[in-house]
């Protein structure tokens, strides 16, 4: 099974976030789950990749060529797929993913996470979407999702599309099963 991880590339964030990313990498390697991610060499992406590799796991990076040209890529992941642009990168990661995990991140991570939600809402992606809420990072976003539901921008049922984990260990437990959140997502996609 392949787990797609979206995460920050910032190296200026609190060290607790990096520790959680490393722990997740270790646990994914131990669970023999393959990982696909954005191919970055620093920040939470780098911490995750380093931990997967140090513990004998397999991790594939997917990076646009311009980022590679900038030298933002990880130097020794198991495999690096170079794409022509950002859109192709994301499409490739979704294609490979049996499950998606979002770690704390900026607008790039948020955009990847919300596209995953959109695809699941439309029945175009059927795996799990797990938010690793380290240090309650996603508190405001989770509140915003609730705000969407209360204002009928999302249905109550759509809250079943994502799961929230407080620790990397909880992520691994959630990855062990897939919620069958709706049998025909498209039938409730229009609100």
């Amino acid at each position, binding site marked *: 099974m392949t787990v797609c991880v979206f995460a920050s590339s910032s190296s200026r964030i609190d060290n607790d976030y990096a520790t959680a990313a490393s722990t997740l990498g270790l646990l994914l390697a131990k669970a023999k789950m393959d990982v696909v991610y954005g191919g970055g060499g620093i920040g939470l992406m780098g911490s995750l990749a380093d931990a997967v590799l140090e513990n004998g796991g397999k991790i594939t990076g997917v990076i646009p060529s311009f980022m590679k040209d900038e030298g933002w890529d990880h130097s020794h992941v198991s495999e690096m797929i170079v794409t022509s642009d950002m859109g192709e990168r994301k499409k490739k990661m979704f294609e490979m993913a049996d499950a998606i995990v979002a770690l704390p991140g900026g607008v790039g991570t948020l955009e990847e996470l919300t596209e995953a939600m959109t695809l699941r809402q439309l029945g175009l992606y059927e*795996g799990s979407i797990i938010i690793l809420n380290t240090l309650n990072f996603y508190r405001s976003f989770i509140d915003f999702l609730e705000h969407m539901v209360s204002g009928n921008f999302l249905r109550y049922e759509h809250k079943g599309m994502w799961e929230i984990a407080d620790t990397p260990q909880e992520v691994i437990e959630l*990855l062990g*099963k897939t*919620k*069958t959140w709706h*049998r025909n997502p498209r039938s409730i996609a229009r609100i």
Partner: protein
Amino acid sequence: MAIEVNDNNFDDLVLKSDKPVVVDFWAEWCGPCRMVGPIMEEISHEYEGRALVAKCDVDSCPGVSAKYSIRNIPTVLFFKDGKIADKQVGAVPKNNFVVKLNALI
């Protein structure tokens, strides 16, 4: 080999079986289900003649899946004499399934 069951034959093959039946609820798109599938195949061979192993694709068995409130997959239900005797949700090591099945034989 694990047999395929569906809404039409579930009662005959599972509920009326004279042997314990292990039913693996799964789907093609479910990553963790792919970790349990090979374990079920192994158990089906190892327990041949003593227990039956069945696979139920939740996408093609909406009736059975709803009847047994399958909300997470993989879910493995253990049936004996037409009733649920045990349950295991999620991808876990083979021994977890073996212990539960042995208790029914």
